[in-house]
């Protein structure tokens, strides 16, 4: 795997790294903002899940782009055990209507703009996975910008990061690079421990 990586916060930079972050960092419940180009956002998603899974963590993916069923296929295809991943799906129910949640696997939210429902779903899923070491992957901040303004996204991420810290969990927020409003970026910087610009 060949990745170009720039890291701010704890400050490291590397052309080829095995993982975006270390197990120690996850163990320390660090929270990351990973910036990547829009074309690589899916690739980055898969890499993160693979890395997190390999470190013995269960990943809770909050998806606003692809339905959970598609992501499961992609993960399987990339050698990731779907048992290590559960989802809050903000896509499927908008198209299919009433779809039942699958406990421990997926909770559906009607639409990504409903931050209250999204917050509840995240909280519920975390409870369901409370016996595991969980890392949250939020995919993606950029898609959320379609529905929600910077101030509300900022508030929501603040809420989620607070929850993670209270529950001693680590988290990763995925966003498209070059284009985040400086004001929003500056606020997100205060909520996360590290920003990883992966190009």
């Amino acid at each position, binding site marked *: 795997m060949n990745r170009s990586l720039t890291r701010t916060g704890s400050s490291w930079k590397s052309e080829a790294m095995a993982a975006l972050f270390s197990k120690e960092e996850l163990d320390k419940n660090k929270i990351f903002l990973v910036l990547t180009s*829009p074309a690589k956002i899916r690739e980055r998603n898969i890499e993160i899940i693979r890395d997190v899974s390999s470190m013995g963590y269960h990943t809770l993916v909050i998806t606003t*782009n692809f*339905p959970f069923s598609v992501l499961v*296929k992609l993960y399987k295809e990339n050698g990731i055990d779907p048992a290590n991943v559960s989802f809050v799906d903000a896509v499927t129910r908008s198209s299919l209507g009433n779809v039942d949640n699958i406990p421990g696997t997926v909770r559906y939210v009607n639409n990504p703009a409903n931050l209250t429902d999204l917050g509840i779903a995240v909280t519920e899923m975390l409870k369901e996975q409370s016996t595991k070491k969980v890392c949250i992957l939020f995919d993606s901040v*950029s*898609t959320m910008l*379609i529905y929600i*303004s910077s101030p509300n996204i900022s508030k929501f991420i603040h809420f989620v990061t607070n929850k993670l810290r209270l529950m001693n969990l680590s988290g990763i927020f995925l966003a498209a690079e070059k284009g985040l409003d400086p*004001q929003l970026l500056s606020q997100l910087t205060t909520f996360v421990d590290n920003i990883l610009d992966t190009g």
Partner: protein
Amino acid sequence: MSEMQKESGCIESAIIENALVMIVVLERGGAVAAWNHAAEKITGYTSGEVIGSPEVWKLLYPDKKYRNEVTKRIAGNLAAHKYFENLETTIQTKTGEKRIIQWNTNEVTRKDGKYQIITIGLDITRNRELDEFRESIIENANVLITVLDQKGIVLVWNQAAEKITGYNRDEVIGKRDIWKHLYPDPEYRRTITAWISSIIKERRLFENLDTTITTKAGEKCIIRWNTREINAGAQAREIAIGRDITRQRDLDAFQESVIDNANILITVLDAQGNILVWNKAAEAITGYTRGEVIRKRDIWKHLYPDPEYRRTVTKQITKIIKEDRYFENFETTIVNKKGLQRILAWNTREIEGGTQKREIAIARDITEQRKAEQALVAYIGEMAMRLKQPVEIVRENLEDTVQMVKAGKLSQEEICIILETQVRNASQILTNIVDFQQAIAEKDEQIPDAYRKFLEE
């Protein structure tokens, strides 16, 4: 005739001849016995033309009616007192000019028993013209002029005094109660009197003393008084000149009111940089009252507390003034008394204020405007981000979907979910574009409050 008598007669003749006043000696019956050099000079008639004849009076008073009138008055006086004093008549000279002569006459009977009338005539034409000229000036002056004697009795009350006060001279001349009418309020009158007394005690005059009089019509007028003591003969008199400055004051008050109530900061500085004017808006914007600022020059240290910034501003101002002598829309950031920053756009002009050059500075508080502009710019940035990134994501989602469809990885239902999701995304992006357009069209009014607050955090 003794030598002494002869000598005395010679001296008498020399005095008469060389006196600067007309001396005419008349015989009984009016024939001229003596006609001195001054009489020749004033009337134009030589002694040769008049001596021995009473006809000169017909020449000097060619108007028969007037001559009869003068003759009657002279005859009456002489009959009663054997003399008359200060009788003024107007003669006509040989060249046709009019001259005013003040006559003093005495009847004498010489030792030889000869009866004569000695008449002395003083040419007061020029004095009279001067008096008339002075009176005319006083009368026609557009300032109130009054003259008071030592007892305060009004001797002069000109037309302007009548016009301004409404009281005509008949109501005022020879009296001293006009001031009770002009200052009907006893308390105010007492104040003015005390004020005037104290000034006069010190300097025997007062200058530019402003008082408010009440006219006969009951209107209030502001009069600016100047007085001088004048010596007219044996008696000291007081001349008081009053200028009606009511209109000027009204105008000043109006201008002050306009300046004071303008919603822009207005200040005027003298050549030394001292503040002369500091209006209400200046107080509101800066927090500094005029009491803290007027006649001082240190306000700028308070408004620009950072020495470095103050130096920069001063340098810029100096440069601009050196080049253009004024500046327009020059923006600075002041710190008001509450410690809050305000952005001001300054305009200055040099103004002529009497003998001194002054600087008027007008400043508009553009803080809110700048904030709004910044908010708009930031909102444009925000919206650009909220359009660019999602469109890129949608594009990538669709590309990924195409690849997965081609590879046969997706079911029909999954394809539908993905496509519907991207349609929803596209619709929402469209809505965002419309909101964005509206915000731009209506400047900053449509910027959501939440976003505005977010910018201020």
